[in-house]
């Protein structure tokens, strides 16, 4: 999937060749508007939740619940955001989470205790990411196809490992991390991991050469290549990163659900892509923010929470989710066409 930076004649016809300063200010405003509008949506949701279910929604326990439920998919989304910014896509995240979670909860793995589970989850995630990366970067496969193949194989393999059975985790030190007793100053350990991954993701994207190269590869792969960036190696690393995030997420999911099951991570790929997109990441690559993606995840999780608290059923939830994705993309296109 090579994309050139869209030449001006196609994308910015309506922009007069005005001086640079106003356009720059415009971009600043839009960058802010994007984040602000997401915060606005989140605030509106909090108001709605607070009005409809004041006691249940505006409650420390509920905040802990929402953030905990956001943690697993949130970690996956951070990795996905990097991949999308680089102009790629990773459809295999859900399947990798499933595979990592079942591999890490087999009877054999559980014999090695906490470390065994954590290590296995991460290694399986990274391993799958490595396969994706090699196929895409050095096998010249389209990311869509390569990760689709990984999706199928990883799901198949996790089914084979579990035989369709739920693998219960019996290691107390793992299970305890999901209990209230493990909260530090009211913060669940899962949420801490999510926060740390988010902060590291933000720093890597905005403050490191790795992040710069990611943006360059996504924004204009040809220019990146001619500027001397090793585009292929960068792509490899990006899918490794996504796999790593899936491994971490799988570990969190094991803690959360106390088990490993081949159905884990169902449709995570779509949730993560949706969150990244409403967070302002361009599907064509070259632009995106970690903050936006995380806000996207929080918005989805909060909606689910409000709907559940108000006892609305899953059909309504799905409709609302679809509407939000469409609205966000429309807003994004408007801001894109006016910058």
């Amino acid at each position, binding site marked *: 999937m090579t994309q050139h930076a869209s030449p001006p004649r196609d994308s910015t016809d309506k922009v007069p060749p005005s001086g640079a300063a106003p356009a720059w200010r415009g971009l600043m405003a839009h960058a802010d508007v994007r984040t602000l509008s997401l915060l606005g949506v989140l605030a509106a949701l909090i108001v709605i939740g607070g009005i409809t279910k004041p*006691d*249940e929604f505006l409650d420390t326990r509920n905040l802990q619940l929402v953030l905990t439920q956001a943690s697993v998919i949130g970690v996956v989304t951070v990795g996905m955001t990097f991949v999308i910014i680089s102009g790629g896509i990773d459809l295999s995240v859900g399947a990798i989470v499933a595979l990592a979670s079942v591999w890490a909860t087999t009877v054999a793995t559980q014999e090695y205790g906490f470390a065994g589970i954590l290590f296995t989850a991460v290694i399986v995630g990274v391993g799958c990411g490595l396969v994706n990366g090699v196929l895409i970067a050095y096998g010249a496969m389209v990311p869509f196809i390569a990760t689709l193949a990984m999706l199928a194989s990883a799901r198949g393999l996790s089914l084979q490992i579990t035989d369709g*059975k739920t693998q219960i985790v019996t290691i107390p030190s793992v299970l305890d991390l999901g209990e209230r007793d493990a909260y530090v100053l009211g913060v669940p350990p899962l949420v801490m991991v999510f926060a740390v991954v988010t902060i590291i993701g933000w720093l890597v994207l905005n403050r490191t050469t790795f992040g710069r190269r990611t943006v360059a590869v996504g924004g204009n792969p040809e220019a990146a290549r001619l500027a001397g960036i090793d585009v292929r190696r960068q792509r490899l690393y990006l899918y490794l990163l996504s796999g790593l995030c899936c491994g971490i997420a799988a570990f969190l999911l094991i803690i959360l659900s*106390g088990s490993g099951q081949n*159905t*884990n991570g169902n449709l995570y790929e779509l949730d993560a892509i949706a969150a990244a997109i409403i967070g302002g990441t361009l599907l064509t690559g070259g632009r995106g923010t970690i903050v936006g993606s995380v806000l996207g995840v929080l918005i989805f999780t909060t909606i689910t929470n409000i709907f559940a608290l108000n006892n609305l059923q899953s*059909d309504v939830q799905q409709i609302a989710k679809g509407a939000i994705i469409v609205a966000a993309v429309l807003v994004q296109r408007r801001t894109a066409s006016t910058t």
Partner: protein
Amino acid sequence: MPEFTSRRGLLFGTAAVGAGALIAGCTSNESKDEPAANDQPAADDKPGKQVTIGFAGPQADHGWLNAINDNAKSRAKKYSDVTLEITEGSNDTAQQIGQIETLINKKVDVLVILPADGKALTQVGLKAMRAGIPVINLDRIFNTPQAYRCWIGGDNYGMGLNAGHYIGEKLKGKSDAKVIELAGLDNLELTKQRTQGFDDALKNYPNIKKVARQAAEFTVESGQNKMAQLLQAQSKFDALWNHDDDQGVGALRAIEQAGRDDFLMVGGAGALAAFQAIKKDDGVLKATVLYPPTMAASAIDLARALGQSKGVGGMAEFEIPASITLYSAVVDKDNVDQYMSTGFK
């Protein structure tokens, strides 16, 4: 039905379910067996004519479906006169049709089909019947009775009904009792039927009100998620019915994480883990309503009987019935030992 007490329900369940009790269970008990009312002998354990049974089921990506396969296989192994041709499980309708057509071409004697989608596979069921191969339709029903010789399956409505009655009896006398429901995948008709049965049962208990319902997806992950939300939404309730023991693993995890134990929980399907928890009786899970995977074993028995042109023991008819609906028994601490061996992982 409304006046069913839980005990009577249990008795019915015991009689009806146990490892293929209705058909094979009785006949295997030869000494006490009454002769069949017709001249044709009922199917029994004695080796008879060789029968090749084709078995096509969906992909076993769920504990219950996996148990279906296991039940079919181990049952077939018991009979020296049965050869089982089992296909690779598939959730893809087109692929499953192809697999069944292959079995038809192989000219198996009887087909046992658990369709990925009953409506979509009706045509191939008809095709088999027209080719002279009788079809045992397992659980997910075809569109028309012409597509099968015999249907055997669970009772989703009955599951909800029995769960509702069990909870109703337990909360009898408690005023303003609240119950909540953790349903299965809402896209499936069976989920609607289970909910309908549950609601209908609760109508008999005016003191009970269902205050919340959320649908999970039969997975541990979704069970944990939706249960956590339900617990946050309802600070006080008396009973919970969870449609499925697999997602129940997640639901129990959420309950544990929330530190709640002020209600009773009834599960669904009959997983081993649920049976064990019920036996231990140290948590909220007090009972589970069966949706027995042993129906696959019964289906093999029926198929063998068909193949050997025999009837069903314990029944007066020459032929096996056209449809058999299994009873959704409630398993609680009192009778759990009896069912322990049928629990699936």
